[in-house]
């Protein structure tokens, strides 16, 4: 099938005339599917204000898209001019495949309920299949039939004369690869895009225990910013974020520079510096909770050495508790930053060092004025990694302080969890997580611009 595309003849034939209806066919088909997805994720709630009529409109919407697509298909048939020919059709096998899918979906949709006992043999998944097909089987069967007909329509074209059209490129070429990529597409569209949109949309509702579609505009956000617990969370995150960002970069770079001095036992040092990174935040938090325990830990040990007034109990002091968490966070993460920096340092041309030595530039000046600027890409990547990790800060706090003392060490991620799963105040959680999303965008967009948009002059 691919060979025909490569022959010179095929390319010479103009294809614009018919690609219009083919494009319409495909676009409306996919639009129908996307609408279906949106509605299935619960976005139909957007139309709930319109009452019964609204519900019906919503249900019909994907079908409208399919109808448009069917109309476009008739035009494709008339443009190709071969009529519905089955035998001798190039894409007969493909069409049969799609028809079989449609048949199965329809069968379960119609006969699923009566035959429930048969499907129960499949266990839980049997129930799910029957339920899914009962609700959505007709729609997807219609999609499959449309695709089958579409393929039959263009299958009568002579491949040695006509270049493959949109249909063929979408549903025939590299089909296996496309099927194999379905999980990725589902996750990207269904979970990452759909899920994110869903949360944002529902942050404008009044959902409490269950998501409901009572719209309240920005009320949740106003309430959010009026809550002292959220303000404290944001403040904590800001302090932790700035300190952690600066300190991890500085410490990570210094450690990497130390390890880069062609020292002995480099591997041993690296192993020791990196091992905390293999541990979970829970383990990290619990260990440091113990080490910083005022009755047994560092404070007590120093006091027993004679400084009986020594005070170091960050986890029990509201004002500095976040620094107690910072200590643990840095302990866990700086080894990793060091590894990234070290990789960056090792990527620097050896000749640069030699040139600097011949020029008589002291080592620290070479690091700061020559090497550091050269590591800009690594630094930016590291920055993004640290930043997006900071926003997620959760496990460590839960393990080390559970947000205490009082609410002194709360962080946004914990706020979201507590509101969603403990406080039965879903919409507050949605609003808070949307704010987190916003903050990540503020970090991510400039980075993406630097990395991909403004990256034209970096292939030096």
């Amino acid at each position, binding site marked *: 099938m691919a060979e025909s595309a490569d022959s010179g003849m095929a390319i010479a034939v103009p294809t614009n005339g018919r690609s219009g209806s083919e494009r319409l066919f495909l676009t409306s088909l996919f639009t129908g599917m996307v609408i279906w997805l949106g509605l299935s*994720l619960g976005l139909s709630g957007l139309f709930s204000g319109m009452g019964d009529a609204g519900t019906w409109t919503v249900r019909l919407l994907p079908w409208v898209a399919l109808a448009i697509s069917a109309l476009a298909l008739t035009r494709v048939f008339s443009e190709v001019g071969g009529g519905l020919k089955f035998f001798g059709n190039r894409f007969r096998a493909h069409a049969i495949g799609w028809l079989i899918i449609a048949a199965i979906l329809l069968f379960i949709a119609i006969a699923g309920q009566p035959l429930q006992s048969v499907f129960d043999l499949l266990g*839980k998944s049997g129930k*799910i299949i029957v339920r899914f097909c009962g609700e959505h089987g007709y729609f997807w069967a219609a999609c499959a039939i449309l695709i089958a007909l579409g393929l039959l329509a263009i299958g009568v074209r002579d491949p040695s004369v006509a270049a493959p059209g949109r249909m063929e490129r979408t549903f025939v*070429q*590299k089909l*296996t*690869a*496309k099927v*194999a*990529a379905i*999980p*990725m597409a589902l*996750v*990207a569209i*269904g*979970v*990452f*895009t759909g899920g*994110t949109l869903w*949360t944002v949309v*529902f942050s404008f509702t009044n959902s409490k225990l269950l*998501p409901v579609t009572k719209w309240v505009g920005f009320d949740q956000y106003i309430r959010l910013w009026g809550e002292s617990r959220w303000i404290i969370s944001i403040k904590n995150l800001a302090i932790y974020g700035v300190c952690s960002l600066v300190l991890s970069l500085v410490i990570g770079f210094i*450690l990497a520079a130390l390890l880069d001095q062609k*020292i002995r036992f480099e591997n041993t040092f690296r*192993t*020791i*510096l*990196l*091992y*905390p990174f*293999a541990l*979970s*935040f*829970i*383990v990290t938090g*619990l*260990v*440091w909770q*113990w080490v910083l*325990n005022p009755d*047994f830990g560092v404070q007590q*040990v120093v006091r*027993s050495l004679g400084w009986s007034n020594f005070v170091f109990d960050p986890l029990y002091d509201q004002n500095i508790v976040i620094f107690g968490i910072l200590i643990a966070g840095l*302990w866990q993460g700086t080894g990793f930053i060091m590894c990234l920096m070290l*990789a960056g340092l090792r990527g620097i041309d050896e000749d640069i060092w030699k040139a600097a030595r011949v020029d008589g530039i002291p080592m620290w000046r070479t690091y700061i004025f020559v090497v550091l600027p050269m590591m800009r890409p690594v630094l930016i990547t590291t920055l993004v*990694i640290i930043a997006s990790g900071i926003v*997620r800060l*959760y*496990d460590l706090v839960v*393990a080390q302080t559970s947000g205490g003392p009082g609410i002194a060490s709360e962080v946004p*991620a914990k706020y*979201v*969890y507590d509101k969603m*799963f403990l406080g039965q105040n879903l919409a507050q*959680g*949605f609003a*808070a*997580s949307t704010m987190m*999303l916003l903050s990540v965008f503020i970090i*991510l967009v400039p980075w993406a611009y630097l990395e991909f948009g403004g990256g034209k002059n970096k292939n030096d």
Partner: protein
Amino acid sequence: MTDTTLASGPAGPKPKPAFSRRNIIIYGSLIVICLYYLVPLYVMIVTSLKGMPEIRLGNIFSPPMEITFQPWVKAWAEACTGLNCDGLSRGFWNSVKILVPSVIVSIIIASVNGYALANWRFKGANIFFTILIFGSFIPYQVMLYPIVIILREIGLYGSLTGLVIVHTIFGMPILTLLFRNYFTSVPEELFKAARIDGAGFWGIYFRIMLPMSLPIFVVAMILQVTGIWNDFLFGVVYTKPDTYPMTVQLNNIVNSVQGVKEYNVNMAATIITGLVPLTVYFISGKLFVRGIAAGAVKG
């Protein structure tokens, strides 16, 4: 060999004192920093081997006067979370039950995805991939609830299978990236030659790509094993107390407010939980570094 005579003055290697100022600074600071990194591990081990009376005496840094393994036994088999008093063992086995299928499923799916992206480029694939990569930076909190709904819809909320699906989903961006980059680096001629020889999508994947990419599979495994084992958030959101993974159970044991705090048991439990990723770390060595460097985007 030659009869040249060396002139007086410096000759041969430049003398380098073992204790030059430079060396003292470098090694000195490295050793001090390493001590800081090692102290928590040391304290953990030491505490877990002491009896409670000895701990109450005070110094967490002092080595145990009397070594006891009782805390370890208790942590494993008797420690209580709420009403359950069967120790960490349940959490451990739950974690294993989550870990094994999650690692296998996520790696299979991601490797096929990466292969499709790298070698069978088709229109639209990169859009999905870009969404995936951007998605990996989005705070999980944003997607937590929609996934609860999806899992509930398909009847898997609260089950281990549900958590396996969640781990597969959130492991996908980084693993796909890892495999895509690796397969892209495989010479394209090899792929073309196989196509000319008539191999199809799966033929090339199983007979050419798989045998060539064992190291990257190991890297992916290391990444997933440590990542999934250390996960807390998904465990606490998507499972029930019966199916809690080890990290969640550990946190519940240590931070439970009831009863007297048994620090030695807590520390023993903490070590046991950290043991799996630590073992992976110490065995895999350089591969671990490679894995996390490749997984840098994960954040």
